């Protein structure tokens, strides 16, 4: 694994705009960065990322099965009790899921270490699935990278397969897509998924999360025309949905959710200590445990994360030599876990995080984020990768 400086494509910003990638720059700061790329060998990708991802995924699926059957474990994960039956039923019925992303600390040498799962509302999907792919095709064409360069990326293709599979079994072949208002990045991510769904032969109408309605006596959540929403993709976390006004209606109404309710088990950092308990000393896992009430300050070599948080918020860490780093945030009302600190590799000023994409049950791509800090956050840049 190397970080290689490279010339940018001359017109990439124009192309980004034309392809709907309006958030390539966020608040004046670059988000998409192509002045460098991360270079992997095929062996690194297949042996160290792809194979472990699929293995970890299977471990997670087995753990979901175990958690769904255990009230004690559901409780331990702070999942509200009224959701337990819904989660269990969705798992037992085999409700399919679309996708997820595992975040690894990986240096190119030694096993990739799972930092966390983003299995409910993963983003950076468009960047990884489409724009990164276009970058490589053009970089090859323009002689910026070797002709034989490749990329671990069939994300969009696999999503299309998954959506085609799912769409066949949805009423009217229709899947509604939703995200909150006033967030261009999330709207673009959902738009991208709608795009793929349409290519897979589905009808893919959009509704803002806030506009989802409930009719008295109805069996489904409804759209703005009060028509039933039979199946709904949400870019909104399960733990938040459940807490809201309509949360109590989820078990009662028949709307199918994507991701399915059982993903609540995996969108929770409590899954990390459970994985470690179930598979101790697995080479791709880091030691993790549930923080005890009143536990003392973070000793060197440990990271503290809330059960529920997004984009690095409220994460604190103390490096092995005692340096403390943290990201502020609002997620202070859930329990915490502690995980052994494993440094991300550093290339110049940047710490690199490898995101490994799963679609259905297949590992199918990677996206790299880099940051000057040790905690990856929403402002961390997306940098393309190539297999050379």
């Amino acid at each position, binding site marked *: 694994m190397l970080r290689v400086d490279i010339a940018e494509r001359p017109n990439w910003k124009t192309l980004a705009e034309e392809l709907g990638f309006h958030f390539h720059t966020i608040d004046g700061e670059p988000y998409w960065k192509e002045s460098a790329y991360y270079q992997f060998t095929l062996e690194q990708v297949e042996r160290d990322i792809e194979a472990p991802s699929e293995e970890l995924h299977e471990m997670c699926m087995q753990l979901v099965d175990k958690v769904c059957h255990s009230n004690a474990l559901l409780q331990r994960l702070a999942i509200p009790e009224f959701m337990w039956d819904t989660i269990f039923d969705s798992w037992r019925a085999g409700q399919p899921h679309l996708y997820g992303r595992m975040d690894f600390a990986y240096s190119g040498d030694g096993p990739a270490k799972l930092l966390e799962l983003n299995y409910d509302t993963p983003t950076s999907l468009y960047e990884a699935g489409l724009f990164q792919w276009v970058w490589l095709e053009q970089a090859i064409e323009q002689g910026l990278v070797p002709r034989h360069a490749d990329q671990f990326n069939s994300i969009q293709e696999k999503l299309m397969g998954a959506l085609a599979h799912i769409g066949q079994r949805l009423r009217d072949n229709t899947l509604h897509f939703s995200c909150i208002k006033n967030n261009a990045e999330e709207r673009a*991510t959902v738009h991208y998924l709608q795009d793929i769904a349409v290519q897979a032969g589905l009808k893919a109408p959009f509704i803002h999360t806030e506009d989802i309605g409930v009719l008295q006596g109805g069996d489904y959540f409804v759209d703005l025309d009060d028509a039933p929403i039979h199946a709904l993709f949400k870019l909104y976390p399960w733990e938040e949905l459940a807490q809201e006004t309509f949360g109590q209606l989820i078990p009662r109404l028949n709307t199918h959710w994507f991701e399915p309710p059982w993903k609540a088990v995996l969108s929770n950092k409590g899954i990390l200590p459970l994985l470690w308990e179930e598979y101790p000393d697995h080479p791709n896992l880091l030691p993790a445990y549930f923080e005890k009430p009143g536990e003392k300050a973070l000793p060197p070599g440990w990271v503290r994360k809330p059960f529920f948080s997004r984009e690095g918020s409220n994460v604190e860490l103390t490096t092995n030599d005692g340096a403390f780093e943290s990201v502020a945030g609002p997620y202070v009302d859930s329990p915490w876990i502690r995980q052994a600190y494993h440094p991300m590799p550093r290339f110049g000023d940047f710490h690199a995080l490898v995101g490994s994409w799963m679609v259905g049950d297949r590992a199918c791509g990677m996206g790299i984020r880099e940051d000057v800090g040790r905690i990856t956050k929403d402002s961390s840049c997306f940098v393309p990768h190539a297999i050379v």
Partner: protein
Amino acid sequence: MTRDDQLSHLPHRKRSLRLSLALMGAGAFTLTGCGQSEEVTDVSFDSPKSFQSVEECVAANVYTESACEEAYQASIKEVPRFDSLEACEAEHGEGACVAPTEEQAQAATGTSGGSWFMPALMGYMVGNMMSRTSRGATRQGLYQEPVYRNRQNQGNWNAATNQASQRVSQRQQTMRNVATQNRQATQRSGFGSRSSARGGWGS
């Protein structure tokens, strides 16, 4: 046929051969078509069409009839075949399997008839076989592999909806009544009110 068998004749390639956009990428065709930028003329954005049948493919007027037929026959050869409907449904779900039509049997095995079953064909199996690039229409052999593993312990998620709702406890029923009582019109804003650290929920 095992996965390895399917892959053995293919180049070792970790990225998709082609991608297309149906909704977001309207500008891509324009950009390629009118040559505004020399650098991007070789980006291959393909027609997003996918088809359920040869007839539908031909009717779309994008590919020649022979290209449509060739792709269709190639895709149907890839469809897994089962000796019984039960065996097929056990793997692909209840109601997901059919006996092949005479034409499908012919395309798949080269002989008419045959007592076997297969999952109902998905459109993408045809659609993915073909692509159209700025250099003209081409057909690309693309292997298919299932996105989902078979999990024996799981049921038919589609049929399970009502079953699930029947398990709602009395307690939840009461909560529902509280949540919806005395309301005549559609209620909204019941989701999306929670604030996140940065005004979004992606991770």
